C-alpha cells in the first residue's frame, strides 16, 4: 500500500508527511496531527462535529478523503483561539450559555464562523440555515443562535464588546441567576478532551465482534487465526473473564461478552486489541464463531405466553420486573363514576443519539490498578461491578469519568468498559475503543417501547374516581435499568392527581430486541403519556377545558401520593398557569376547528418549513442598491 506524501498548511503551519491513501481528512487531523478539537459524531456527513475550513470553505472532514486536501490550507477549531484569546464567536458562545455537553460545539463554532464570514449581517433565519448541517442534542439551538447574533452585533459595532465581560451573578449568589459555565472555554475552543480524543504512548486500538443473530447458542469460538496475525496483541471472549461475569443496574444478567449464547443482534461476542484500527478490523474477520440459531421472540406480549422462547434461565416467564400498586378498590371507583373510558396507548423505542459515540481508554498503572476512563454516567456503581467481574479487590479498580458528550441516560450501563479492562490486563498496554455511530445505535440501550391499557372513571364534574393501568414494556435482551424504569413508571403513572382508587401494573419483559434502559424521564413518559392523553379525552367528553380538568384533580400542598409519599409543596398549579399563559391557550373544551383555529399566524407561531433566507437578503440588498 503506497502511502501518499501529503503537503498542506494546517492552522498556519506547514505540514509535510505521509498519509494512508484511505484516510479521511478527519482521521489525518485527529490521529496524525493530534488536532482533536473537531470530532467524529457520525462519520457520514450527518452531524457537523467534524467541520473544518479547507481553503476558506467549510467542509465536513469525515466526507473528505485526505488526498483531496493535498496542497490546501486547512483551519481546524484550534486555529480560532491560537493566540490564547477566544474569538468573538467563542466568547459569545461562552456568554450565551450555548455549550452544554460541548461535543457539537467545535463544529457549531466553525459553522457560525462560516456564516458570519459569508454574511456579516446574517439574520436569524439565515443563521439557522447556514448552521443546518450541524446537530446539537443538548441546547435546543436557541442559545447557539443567540450567541451568533451577539457575535455578529459586536463585530458590527452595534453591541459593545463589554457585553461579553458583563458579570452575570454576584459572587456566592447563584440561585435564579445566570451563571457562566466554567467548562465553556475549554469546549468552545476544542481544548477539552473526550475519551475518544485521548491517547497514551503504546496505546492499542480495540474493535468488537458483534452478533449477527437475535438468539443463538454459541457452539464454538476460534480466535487462533486472529491471535496469530501481526499487529494483534490480544483477543478476548467470555472465557477470559476471571470473576462473576455479570453487570446490570438492578440484576447482573449481562456478561461482558456473550457467554454460551447471544440474545440480540449487535451483542458483543469477542474483542481484539491491535496496533492500529485496521489491523483490529482484519482480525475480527478471522474469528470463527459457530452459532446454532434458537427461536427468538420480539414482542413482549408474546414473550409472556407459556412456551415462548426463554432468554434467561432465572426468569422462565421472561419477566424482568413487575411493579403492582394498589390503592382503594378500583371496581368500587368505576361503579361511582359517571363516565368510563378505556383506551390503549403505545410508545416506541427511542435512541438517545448523544453526539459523542461511546468511547473509553483503559490501562494498568504502575501499581497494577486497572483504570478505565470513559464517559460513564455511573462510575461508582461500575467500579463495584467491575471489581467483581475481574475478581479483584475494589482498591485495584479505578474509574475516571471523562467529559460526557451527551448521555441522557444512555451511558449509565457498563456496556463496554469490561472489555477494555480485560484487554488492558491481557496486553498490559493501554487500549482504546471508539464506537462508530452505527455501533452505538445497534448495541446500546434505547427508551423502553410500551403498550398501555388504561381505564379511567370520572364523575360528571371532572373528578377522577378510579384509574386502572397495565403497561407492558419491551425490556429487550438484558435487564440494565428496566427494574427501576418500571418502578418509576408505576409510581408516576397516575400523575399528580388526587385519585381515590388506583390499580397499576407495569411489566418489563425480556425479548430478543436491543436492550432498553435509562432514558430521560425513566419510565414516566410512557405511563404519563397514557394518563395525560386520557385526561384530554375526558375533557372532550365532559365538555371541560383541559387545563380546568387538571386543576380539578390536582394534588395540592400536603397531598399524599399513591405510593404514600407526603408532599410538602406541590407546584402543579403554578406550572399549569405558566403553561397556559405561554402557550396562548384558548379556553374551552377541546374541539376540532381545522383552519378556523384562532391561533394560526399568531406572533411566535412557526411558519411552515422553508429555506432560502439568503435570497431575501440578496433581494433586499439589490433593492437598496
Amino acid at each position: 500500500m503506497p502511502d501518499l506524501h501529503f503537503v498542506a498548511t494546517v492552522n498556519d503551519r506547514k505540514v509535510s508527511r505521509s498519509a494512508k491513501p484511505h484516510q479521511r481528512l478527519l482521521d489525518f487531523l485527529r490521529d496524525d496531527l493530534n488536532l482533536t478539537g473537531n470530532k467524529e459524531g457520525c462519520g457520514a456527513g450527518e452531524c457537523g462535529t467534524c467541520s473544518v475550513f479547507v481553503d476558506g470553505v467549510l467542509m465536513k472532514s469525515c466526507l473528505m478523503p485526505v488526498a483531496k486536501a493535498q496542497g490546501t490550507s486547512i483551519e481546524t477549531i484550534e486555529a480560532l483561539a491560537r493566540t490564547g484569546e477566544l474569538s468573538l464567536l467563542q466568547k459569545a458562545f461562552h456568554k450565551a450559555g450555548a455549550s452544554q455537553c460541548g461535543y457539537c460545539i467545535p463544529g457549531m463554532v466553525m459553522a457560525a464562523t462560516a456564516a458570519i464570514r459569508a454574511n456579516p449581517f446574517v439574520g436569524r433565519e439565515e443563521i439557522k440555515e447556514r448552521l443546518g448541517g450541524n446537530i446539537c442534542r443538548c441546547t435546543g439551538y436557541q442559545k447557539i443562535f443567540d450567541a451568533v447574533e451577539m457575535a455578529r452585533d459586536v463585530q458590527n459595532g452595534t453591541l459593545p464588546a463589554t457585553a461579553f465581560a458583563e458579570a452575570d451573578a454576584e459572587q456566592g449568589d447563584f440561585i435564579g441567576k445566570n451563571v457562566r459555565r466554567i467548562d465553556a472555554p475549554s469546549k468552545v475552543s476544542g481544548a477539552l478532551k473526550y475519551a475518544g480524543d485521548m491517547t497514551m504512548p503504546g496505546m492499542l486500538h480495540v474493535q468488537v465482534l458483534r452478533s449477527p443473530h437475535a438468539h443463538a447458542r454459541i457452539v464454538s469460538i476460534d480466535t487462533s487465526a486472529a491471535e496469530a496475525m501481526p499487529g494483534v496483541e490480544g483477543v478476548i471472549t467470555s472465557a477470559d473473564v476471571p470473576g462473576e461475569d455479570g453487570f446490570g443496574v438492578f440484576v447482573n444478567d449481562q456478561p461482558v461478552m456473550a457467554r454460551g449464547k447471544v440474545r440480540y443482534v449487535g451483542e458483543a461476542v469477542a474483542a481484539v486489541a491491535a496496533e492500529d484500527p485496521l489491523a483490529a478490523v482484519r482480525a475480527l474477520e478471522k474469528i470463527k464463531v459457530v452459532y446454532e440459531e434458537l427461536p427468538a421472540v420480539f414482542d413482549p406480549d408474546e414473550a409472556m405466553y407459556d412456551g415462548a422462547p426463554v432468554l434467561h434461565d432465572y426468569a422462565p416467564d421472561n419477566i424482568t420486573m413487575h411493579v403492582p400498586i394498589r390503592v382503594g378498590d378500583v371496581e368500587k371507583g368505576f361503579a361511582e363514576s359517571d363516565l368510563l373510558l378505556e383506551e390503549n396507548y403505545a410508545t416506541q423505542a427511542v435512541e438517545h443519539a448523544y453526539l459523542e459515540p461511546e468511547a473509553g481508554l483503559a490501562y494498568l498503572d504502575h501499581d497494577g490498578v486497572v483504570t478505565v476512563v470513559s464517559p460513564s454516567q455511573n462510575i461508582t456503581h461500575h467500579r463495584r461491578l467491575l471489581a467483581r467481574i475481574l475478581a479483584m479487590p475494589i482498591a485495584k479498580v479505578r474509574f475516571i469519568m471523562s467529559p460526557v458528550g451527551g448521555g441522557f441516560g444512555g451511558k449509565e450501563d457498563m456496556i463496554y468498559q469490561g472489555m477494555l479492562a480485560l484487554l488492558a490486563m491481557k496486553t498490559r498496554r493501554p487500549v482504546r475503543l471508539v464506537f462508530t455511530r452505527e455501533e452505538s445505535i445497534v448495541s446500546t440501550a434505547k427508551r423502553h417501547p410500551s403498550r398501555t391499557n388504561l381505564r379511567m372513571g370520572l364523575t360528571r364534574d371532572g373528578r377522577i374516581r378510579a384509574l386502572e393501568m397495565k403497561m407492558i414494556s419491551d425490556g429487550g435482551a438484558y435487564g440494565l435499568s428496566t427494574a427501576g424504569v418500571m418502578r418509576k413508571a408505576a409510581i408516576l403513572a397516575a400523575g399528580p392527581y388526587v385519585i381515590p382508587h388506583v390499580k397499576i401494573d407495569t411489566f418489563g419483559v425480556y425479548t430478543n430486541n436491543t436492550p432498553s434502559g435509562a432514558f430521560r424521564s425513566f419510565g414516566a413518559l410512557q405511563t404519563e403519556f397514557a394518563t395525560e392523553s386520557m385526561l384530554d379525552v375526558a375533557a372532550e367528553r365532559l365538555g371541560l377545558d383541559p387545563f380546568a380538568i387538571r386543576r380539578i384533580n390536582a394534588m395540592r400542598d400536603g397531598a399524599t401520593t399513591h405510593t404514600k409519599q407526603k408532599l410538602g409543596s406541590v407546584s402543579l398549579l403554578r406550572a399549569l398557569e405558566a403553561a397556559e399563559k405561554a402557550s396562548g391557550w384558548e379556553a374551552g373544551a377541546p374541539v376540532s376547528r381545522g383552519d378556523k383555529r384562532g391561533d394560526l399566524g399568531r406572533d411566535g407561531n412557526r411558519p411552515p418549513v422553508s429555506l432560502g433566507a439568503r435570497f431575501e437578503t440578496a433581494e433586499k440588498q439589490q433593492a437598496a442598491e
Partner: protein
Amino acid sequence: MLICDEYLTPASLDEAFAAMEKHRGHYRVVAGATDTLPWARQGRAGDVHIRALIDVAKIPELNEKKTGDRRVRFGAATPIQRFLDDPALGRAMPCMPRCAVWFADDQIRSLATIGGNIINASPAADGTPCLIAHEATVELAARRGGKTARRKMPLESFITGPNKTALEDGELLVAIECDALPGYGGSFEKVGHRRSLVISLVCLAALVKLDSTGRKIEDVRLAIAGIGPLPLRLAEVEKFLRGGPIGMERLERAAAMPVELVASRTRQEYRRDVVRGFMMRGLINAARRAGADAAALAPELEAAYA
C-alpha cells in the same frame, strides 16, 4: 470503512482513462465522494476494499463552464454550491440556486458534484428534476481502442431506474448541457423529515416565463422526483398551461393533474397531497419571480401556498 490501496487524482481525462485501464475491474470513480463514503459503512456495504479510487473532481474538463444564449454547458464535477455562488449559472438556470439551497447543507454541497448526483441516480436526487426541466443532455466519454469516444444522450433516457443509468463500463460523465432560460422565474420545492441533510420525500422544479403583460404563461417547465422510481418531466401539464393566463382556477386544475402519477412504494396518500400543494406553490413562486403582475396572482393564493 472504505479502504483503498491507491488514491489517484488524474489531472486530465487521458490520465483518468489510463488509470481506469490499468486498474480495470478493480477501481471505483469518485468525484465529491459524498455518496461513496457513507455507502461504505456498517448497515450498507460495510467495509469495502477497493484497489484504486480514481478521483475525477479536479480534471479541468470536468470543471469547465460555458454559458451561451440558448444552451449552457458545465462539467460533471461542478460542485452543487457553484449554482449558488456563480451568478452567470444562476441566471441561465433560475431554479438551480433554489435547488442548491435545499441540497444537503452548506458544507456538503461544496464537495458534492452534479455528476455524482446524476450517476448515483437516487429516485429522490434533488439535482435531476431541475436538469430535466432544462432539457439536459449528458456528454459521456470512454477510451475505446486507444481513442476517446464520446456520445451524448438526453438525461431523461440516461437514468433508467433507481441507482441505474446507461453509463457503460469504462465510461465517464464529462459534462451536462442544458437550455439556458434567463428571464424565467424558477422555484424548487422540497419536503423531507427536516430542513437540511435530508432526502426528499418529494421535490419539484418549476420554471415559468411570462409574456410582457405579466399575466400570461409563455413557457413553463415542470419536473418532479420522489414519487416513483424515476424523475418525471410533466409535459402534459406544461402543455395545458402554456399560452394560458395565470389564474387561480387554471393553476388548481394544473396542480391536480400529476397527483395520479404518485407510484412510490410508501406514503402515497401523503405524497399526493404534497404534489398538489407543491404544484401550486412552485407555479406561484416561479411566476412571482418571473415578474408576474401583482394583481394576477390573488393574494389569498399566495398566502395559502407561497
